[in-house]
Structures are given as C-alpha cells and as structure tokens.
C-alpha cells in the first residue's frame, strides 16, 4: 500500500489554475431592438425643437440613428394642433403659440406607421434666473445658478448651458503649406509647396463653444421657500483653455415637474454615475411617452412644457489670476538653434513660422497656429462683447 501512495505522489501533476476571460455576447444582443428616443420640450416663449432618434447597438460602433420622416404634432386640451417640420437630423421644429392655462401633449407618427403620444402636461412658468455666480475652487472656476420663485410652486429645476470662449493662436505664420499627392512617385506620397502666407488663411481669433453634456438638476423641495442658492452648473478646471482669454456661459433654466425630475435623475444615475463593475445595477424608468399600438414598448424621453429663462455672464482672464493653462505650444527650431531645420524635418506635424537668418525655418505645432484646429469658429458670435 505504501508503494501505491508513493506512486500517487510521483504521478501527481501540480495544479495549474487558469482564470479565463472570454468574450461574452448575451443572446439578447443578436437581435437588436431599436427603441424610440424623444428629447425636447414645448417652449412657451421660443421655438420648440423635438429631437427623435433610435437607440443603436452597444456592441457595434454605430452612428446615431435619427428618426426622419415622422409626423410630429403638439396638441392641446383646447384642441389646437400644431405640426412641427423635420430635417434630416431627426429634429422637428415649430414656433408654437402657447396658452399657459391649457395642457399639451406630443403626438408622433413614425414613417413605419407607429403612433406615439405623451401624457398631457401643464405649461410651467419658469422663474427668472437671479444670477449666475462663480467662485475660484481648487484654482479652477465653479459656476452656480441662483434663482427663486416667490410663489413657491416651481421647486424642481433643470439647467442647460452653452459655453463660448476666445481662442487666440499662440503663433502666427508667414507661410502657408499646400499638400499635393505626387501621383507619379508615390514615395514620398505627399509633396509640400511653400508660398507666402495668405493673410486670411489663419484667423487671428476663433471662438470655441460647447453645450452642456450632463443632466443638471436642482430642487428646493427641502426648503421652506422656493429658493435655489449656489446650485452647481459646471466646473472649469484650471488647466482648461476656456478662460485663457475670455469666457462666456449662457444658462437656460427650465421649471420641470417632479415626475420629470425623477425621470431625469434616474437617467443621470444610470448613465453618468456608473463607473466600476462594483457599482449596483442600474434600472430604467419609463417616461411619459408611450406607443399607442403597443403600450409595453419602451420609449425613452419625457415631454415637458415650460417657458425658458436665460442669463449670460462673461469671465475674463484678468478675473482669474494664476490661471494654470499650458497650451503646450513651443517654437521648434528657434533662432538660436544651430540645426539646419529643413522643412523635411518640420513637416507635416509643424508649420513654419518664418525663415531664419542662417537658413531653415522656425516652426510650431499646427494647433498653435490655426485656431480652427482647436474647434474654434473664426466668426464672431453676435453676443460677444
């Protein structure tokens, strides 16, 4: 018996633990169900835009799926019907005169004949924004909204904003470069031709812009009066280029219902605050739009009706001393550089700035010369002061 034991030991193969990670495609993913996504509200003091799209697969790198060719109408309890006209981006717009004492609903008939309707919603009057304030926080800028309603009946707020900022290129170039593909001799495939700079080719100033991409909510329900004080809107980190010269933010304030607030808050939690695999499971909540032919169909979106209040503020660089933004721009081959600095070494990543006395070119990163490469628009906005 003892020999048997020994054989067992000798014959024993040391264990190998293999932890395997395999691609996993749940069965549900193979047939993609596309759900309707409806975003927008009835604007009681401006043009109404309703954006309609469809969900796309998470497993493929699909583009947004706009829903075009739908019939979109807004109907009131007073039986007035307004039709919105659509474009190829799935955006449907109209200027709708609104009676604040009536309730409104959204009606959609998609090109495949399915009909959808929202619940009737009251038109909420948004109180004016008292102020948009900001403070230096962690050396950046934190922007807040302040508002109140003496009637104490708004309670739930939503904000959106549009930011605009000046972008002034760090360097100016006396040259322009044109690129041509050399069809006869494909190696190198591109040839560069220098010519003196066209004064209009690089704008001297651009305006960058961005819209809010998060759901921003606030509520005064816990307070004895309907007052919002320092409700955070956005934070500009000190390394951002937004306040290097001059910055502006336009804040749009919406009064919303509690149901809409809960819906948006849930969407925010599901999609903005899930970070790691340890996070608890998300749960979807239904909005107030449903399919008339198939009540079980999930439609993403919550239709609301309200007036919009706006306020714009500007922040200048002088107001934020010690702004830490570093453009990362530098001059390659400055005047005292003794290398030849031929254009072959410079292109295509860099743009020549001027010809040095001893030959060769000083140069800089293209983004430091052409502000349009930083998402800027050389057309000055109307509101810019």
């Amino acid at each position, binding site marked *: 018996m003892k020999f048997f034991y020994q054989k067992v030991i000798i014959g024993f193969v040391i264990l190998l633990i293999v932890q395997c990670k395999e691609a996993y495609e749940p069965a549900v993913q193979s047939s993609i169900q596309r*759900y309707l996504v409806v975003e927008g509200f009835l604007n009681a003091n401006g043009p109404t835009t309703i954006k309609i799209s469809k969900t796309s697969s998470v497993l493929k790198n699909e583009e947004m799926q706009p829903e075009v060719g739908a019939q979109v109408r807004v109907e009131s309890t007073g039986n007035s019907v307004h039709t919105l006209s659509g474009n190829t981006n799935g955006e449907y717009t109209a200027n709708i005169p609104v009676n604040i004492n009536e309730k409104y609903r959204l009606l959609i008939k998609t090109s495949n004949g399915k009909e959808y309707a929202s619940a009737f919603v009251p038109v909420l009057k948004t109180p004016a924004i008292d102020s948009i304030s900001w403070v230096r926080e962690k050396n950046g800028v934190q922007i807040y909204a302040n508002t109140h309603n003496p009637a104490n009946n708004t309670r739930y707020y939503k904000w959106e904003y549009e930011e605009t900022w000046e972008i002034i290129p760090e360097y100016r170039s006396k040259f322009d470069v044109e690129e041509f593909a050399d069809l006869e001799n494909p190696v190198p495939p591109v040839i560069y031709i220098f010519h003196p700079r066209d004064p209009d080719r690089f704008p001297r100033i651009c305006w960058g812009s961005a819209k809010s991409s998060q759901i921003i909510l606030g509520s005064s329900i816990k307070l004895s009066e309907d007052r919002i004080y320092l409700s955070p809107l956005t934070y500009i980190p000190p390394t951002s280029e937004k306040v290097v010269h001059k910055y502006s933010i336009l804040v749009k304030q919406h009064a919303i219902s509690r149901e809409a607030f809960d819906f948006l808050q849930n969407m925010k939690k599901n999609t903005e605050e899930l970070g790691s695999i340890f996070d608890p499971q998300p749960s979807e909540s239904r909005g107030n739009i449903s399919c008339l032919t198939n009540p079980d169909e999930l439609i993403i979106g919550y239709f609301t009706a309200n007036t919009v209040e706006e306020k714009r503020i500007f922040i200048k660089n002088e107001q934020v001393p010690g702004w830490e933004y570093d453009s990362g721009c530098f001059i390659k081959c400055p005047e005292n550089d003794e290398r030849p600095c031929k254009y072959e070494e410079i292109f295509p990543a860099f743009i020549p700035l001027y010809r040095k006395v001893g030959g060769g070119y000083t140069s800089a990163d293209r983004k430091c010369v052409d502000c349009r490469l930083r998402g800027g628009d050389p057309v000055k906005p109307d509101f810019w002061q």
Partner: protein
Amino acid sequence: MRFLRYFILSVLFLLINLNLLAQERRDSVVTTSKKTDFEQFIEQLEKKSGYRFYYNPLHFDSLQISIDTTQKSLDMILNQLLENSDYHYIIDLQRNIFLTKKYEIKGLPKEFFDDSIATVENKEFKIEDYLLGSKKKEVVSSLENKLYELGTKQATPKQGKAVLVGYIREEKTGEPVIGATVYIENPRIGASTDQFGYYSIAIPLGRNVLYIKAIGMKDTKRDIVMYSDSKLNIQLKEQVRSLKEVVVTADKVANIKNVKMGVERLSIKTIKQVPTVFGEADVLRVVLTLPGVKSVGEASTGFNVRGGATDQNLILFNDATIYNPSHFFGFFSAFNPDVIKDVELYKSSIPAKYGGRLSSVLDVSSREGNRKRFSGTAGLGLLTSRLNIEGPIVKDKTSFILGGRTTYSNWLLGLLPEKSGYKNSKASFYDVDLHVAHEFNRKNSLYFTGYLSNDRFNLNSDTTYGYNNKNVSLKWKHSFNNKFYGVLITGYDGYKYNVTSEKNPVNAYQLAFDINQGNLKTNFTYYLNSKNTIDFGVNSIYYKLHPGSFKPNGKESLVVSDIISPEQALESAAYIGDRFDITSALSLDFGIRYSLFNYLGPKSIYTYPTNIPKNEYNLLDTVAYSTGDLIKTYHGPEYRLSVRYAISNNLSVKAGYNTLRQYIHMLSNTTAIAPTDIWKLSDLNIRPQEGDQLSVGVYKNFLSNSIETSVEAYYKRLKNYLDYKSGAVLVLNHHIETDVINTQGKAYGLELMIKKTTGKLNGWMSYTYSRILLRMNDPLLGQLINGGEYYPSNYDKPHDFTLIGNYKFSHRFSVSLNTNYSTGRPITLPIGKYHYAGSERVLYSDRNQYRIPDNFRIDFSMNLEGNHKVNQLTHNSWTLGVYNLTGRKNPYSTYFISENGVVKGYKLSIFGSQIPFINYNIRF
C-alpha cells in the same frame, strides 16, 4: 499487531468459555484507604477475598488506587474502581477475576441463571456478564446488558413518572454527543441531547429500556429501573465499520421524529467526504449542496437560504456571530475543519432562542478537546496547512483544542499568466481557534471559545485589502436540578476591514470599517413533564459600528479625512418556547420571541420630508442626539410554530410558520459577501426587515430507515428588504438612506431530497425549484423599479440539482463525487445606446431581466487511509481529486466595458479547467 490482540482475546474466551456463572460476591473486604499502587492493591484484595486476579500488569502500571474498601463487597469495590475507565472485569465460577483494558469479556446476565431479579442495596449493582463464546463476534458493550437501578428505592413501588437526565458522551474522547435521540418505546417518549450532550426525559417509574441513537455513533440501549428522578451518563461508541460482521440496525429516525422542519445537520465526517476545490474540507461549501441553499457564484462564500440575502443568515460559531465566514475571496471558509464537530442549518423552523436574521441560522459547533489524552491532527494541502492539538488540562475535567490554519498561496498567484492582471498579487490568511471546556462538577461546566481570522490581499495594485473576525465567548452551564438547567453566555464579536494605499505618498489613504458587538445571553431549559420541554431566556446585543473612516496614510498624504460618526444600538429579546408532545404521533413546537431595538445616540441624523423620495436634494435637516439618547425604537413579536404528525414509524408530515425581524443590514456592492461590504443598523430612516415563512413537508424513510426522503415546500414574504437605487454609493456615504430603497419580496420553492445514510454507497441527491422576487411599487419612496412589477433578485436561481455520492470500496479506499447544476443568476444588460441631453448614454434592460449561462460542475475525489493499526505513532491519510472534472467554463461574472466607443461584454470564469488537488492528513 491488531490480529495478535484478537488472537489473545479469543484464547482467553475459549479458556473461560461458558463455564462462567453468576455468583454472589458479598465477601466483605477490608483494606487500607491509602494511595497504593495497583499491584499491591490487587495482592491485598486476593488475600482478603480469596479470589484470584488475572491481568496484564503493563495495562495497569500507571493506575493509582485511592479507594475506601471498608465494609464493601468485592463487586462494589471493583465497580467503584473501574467506573468511568476503560478497564473492565469479569468473574468466573472458579473465583477467578479477569481484568482487561479496552476490551471487555462478555458474560451472561445474572438472570440467565437466576429467576429472581437481583436486588442489591447499593444503587449500582452489576449483573454478571456473559461470554458470547464465539471468537469472531465483535465485543459488544456489556453495559447494554446491565440493569441500572436509578433513584432512591422506595419501600412501596410507586406509579407515575420521573425525570432522567444526564450527559451523552463519546466514549473515547469524552466529547458530548449533540442531537442524540434518547427514547423508550412503550409508551413512546423521546428526547434529544442539546449542544452539551445533555438530555432530560420523563419516563414511567419502573422497568424501562432506554434507547440511544446518534449520528455516527453505535446505537445502544440501557435497561433501567427507575425509582425516582435520577441521573445517568451514557457513553457512546463511535460507529466503527472495520468489523464486517457487525450488523448495524440503524433506526435513524431523526428526520421523521424531529418536530422542527428544514433542519439539516452535517457532521464533519460527512463534510469531509465532499470534494472541494483545493481538497480541504469546507463547511460552507457543503452547506451549499443542501436543498434550498445557493450562492451567486463559484468562489463566493456568502450563501442564500430560501431566497434570503447573504446578510440574512445568522452564522454562529459556538454562539459567537461570524460576520465574514470566508477567506481568500471566498475560496475557503473561515472554519477550520479539524476543530469542527458539526454544523446545523435551520432554514425553516428557527428556534425561538435565535433571532436577528431573516433567513436562517447556521450553527457551527466545535469539538471539545479530548478529555483523556493528548492528540492532534495536521493537514498539508497545496495552498493551506493546518495543525490542531487537543488534550486534557485536568484529565476528565478540563480539556482544550487549539487549531490553526495558514496559507501559502502566493506561489499560485505567481503562476498566473501575465495577461491575467493578477500575477503580482499577494494574498494571505490565517485563523486560530481555541476551545476550552471545564467541568467543575456535575452541575457546573464552563466553555471558552476564542476565534481569530485574518485576511490580507493585494490584487496587483498598490491597494491592500484586509479584514478580520475576532470572537471571544464564555459559556457557563448550570443545572439547578434534574429538570431545570440554564446557560449564561457572554462574549465579544468583532469584524473589521481596511483598505490601504501607500504607493503614492500624496494620495496614500486608509479606509476602514468595523463592527463590534457585546453579547449577553441566558437560555434556560425546563423539562416540565414528559410532554413539555420549555425553553426561555433573555438575549441582549450591544452594537457599536464605525461605518467608515477615510484617513491620510503617512505624513506626506494630502488626503482629507472623512469620518462617519459611529452608530450604536441595543438589540434585546425575550423568548419562551415549548415542545409539546400531545400524543406520541402529534407534537407541537411553538414559541414567541419579542425583540426590541434601540438606536442610540450620540449621532447626527438627517431628516427628510415625508411622502417624497429620500434623496440628496431633499435633505431637510440634521438632528444631533447626544450620548444615551434613544433615537429610534423598533419592537415587535416573532412567532415560531411547527407541528409534526407521525403517520407511521417511517412517515410523517410537518408544517411550520415563522416570523422574524432583522435590525442590521449588509450593504453590498456585489451579490456575494465581499470584503468591502459594510453593515448598517436600522435607524430613523432605515426600517428593520421583516419576514415570515409558511412551510409544509412530508418525510418518508425506506429500507429500515436507511433511505430518507423528504419534500418540503415554502412560501415566504419579505418586508423592507433593502435594494439599491441606480448608481448607489455605499462607501463613505453620510446619508446612505438616499441610495437604498425598501422593497417587498416574496419567495417560494419546493425542495426534494433523497438521502442514503448508511452502506457502502451513501450520499444525497437534491433538487430545488425556488424563486425570489422583489417589488418596489411605492412611488413615494423613489423611482419604481421595472415599473413597479416583481423582478427577480440577484440570486434568483430557479433550478438547482445536487448529487453527492460516496462509495467505499474498502475501509481504506473510498471515492466521492459532487455534481451540481444550477440556473445562471439574473443580470441587467446594456441593450442599446442613445443620445440625450448632450451625451451618448447606455440603455439598460429591465433590472435582472437576463441571466448568465447555467452552471454545471462535477468534482471527484479519492480518500486513501493508511493502515488501521491502533498503536502507531501517526495515522495518515491522503485526499486527492479533481475539481471541475469536465473543465466547463462556468461564468463567475459577466461585465461590460466600453472599448473604443463599443461596449464589450466579457465572461469571467475562475475555475475554467480541471483542477487537480492533493491533501495529506496526519492524526497523532
């Protein structure tokens, strides 16, 4: 060696053969009462009595005699001398006395030759033994053939009943035998032993046959004559299967006779037969094979009983509460198999003395150390090693058992492929157990348990996780009289975890959580009469929790401290229960427990407006309470009821109804118990969980009770079960109530089990169908989940099939197989993406609408025992086998991450291939 011993004994049998006959031995013997050594004493006895003694001096050389033999008969002296020892004697007609050690020579009872029943003045008189005469027969305990006269004999025989109490112990080690059944057949009256091996039974006066049965022990009986209330200790022999001729007519009727439903008891022997992943017997993993018990994943130790959450199980280790019963991410359970005696799981009828959790009570009992001699065990595995030492401190009075385990698993992690991401991980754990039992006298015993377990791991990052359990308990048992005894338990239970990061000195932090509780419990048992056994008592637990602290780690750290103020509470309960045998067929077990929970200051509590969801926008106010303030009190009754009707000796039906309350909740980011889970007491904003359960069952035994079958069905309701809102933050949340919601739940299921307890082939097969559904349909509490409809909970796994089989080829070689199939657990999947409010967002399915693939696994193991010679230095055994024999890649988890704008799903299997294992065990 062993053969030789038998040979000698057989020769001895033949020599004295059937000529032995009863004889009165009243010859009075007068000797000194001084301490003498055995040989001198025997010489004296021989001189004075005229009897001749035969014995092996080697067996008796260490025996010291101290006995007053004045005016005593020879058999009184011998009885007194050899009582409670493993020495035996027999006397033949030729006035020869044979003394033996361990092995007893059989004789005929006195009545065999004498019609009149012997009457003797002293209460322990002995009937003559009778020689079986056949050499191949096993030596059966002669005690069975002895007539015990118990109590004070009265001049006139009385009618009525008297209470018999005593301890039932294992003969070799002196350990108490828990759950042994003690009964008489006519009329049918039974009792079972408690955790101390103590029993109390009221039986008619006069002649009775007392039967004693216990799992793993040889069935035995005692002939008794009851004169009044009295005491009888009984020693049971371990069921040794080495002698094939022994026919064990096991009348294992516990499942039929027990009034309680849904109680599963597993002895460590059974547990050791089930193959486990690294070859080490694992208490919790075997519990998971029982019907109605499930876990979310393969490497998770938390378990779900009948649709309960992992925090709804009260895990007791010798009355100490264990908060995290696992080691090493759940690969090992925190209980050292070598010090465990057995585990008992109550999943339906929970005795009134237990409370505070909704789903089950898992009562893990350690062994008592060997009261007779020092011994130990050691085990060597691929990942862990363990060592246990036990023995008497004062022989037959005080014993101890000390056990320790540690791991050296780092080499294993080092073998992981680089791309696994865990190559540079480190993990270690250890646990230490110390149990001391002391018997002051027949009425007072003291038990001490100390337990410490510690885990540290580092998953290839600069972050180290650690957690530890600390428990101390002291138990004093006092018998007031034969009918009434009480137990006083006091102890401290602690659990804490900490997460530390040191690599980046600026960001270095230390995150910690701990829970501390002090317990004081009194439990009394009163045997009112033969039909009623009453249990009552008062329990109290004082909690102090530090819900979280986040502190800088080191001088350079710039981390800002964030400490959540501690919370404290007092949970008290009083209970009374009665086991009432209405007729021999119909029994009732009912109890009531009234629990009271006080959430105490100092603490600042957030308040919220009523009738709107609690969220961070609605924080109304903070109210500060100071020390000693009663912030919130919850209280309520809990009812426990079970009924059994025995239709026949091997068929019974049972029904039970239970209500329970739970005041402490685990908040977990995962569905299993993870080291970063925190516990939360009920407070102003979080209500206690409540649950009730109705269950019915039918139990039938076949083939002389060697096959047990059962069908149980249950329906359960849960109230205020905590589920989480989307994106809930649990760690360092100062207002956790905004991230949790109270849900209502319902669970129902059917459990089928077939068990074969004896024979070469034994094991069990179970199938469970069960559902656990939750619902959140109160819009005043927050966003409805799945539109307010019932949704499956994270651990809803409807089908579950388990087969545990063990086949003994010989006494030294056996094989075991463990097969398990279960439905995959539910998950919420991302089912699409869309643009809204300026960003791309992911759309999720309804909560828990989809399931991960099903689980299926077969494990196989072989046990090779060394030779069975008794007198060798060590006894060795090997366990080897293969975990996950089919190599199926069972998913442990699935997750989705965004890669280049595409959400990708991954399935992670932990034991995705066959894993061979080997273990070497030594007993000394």
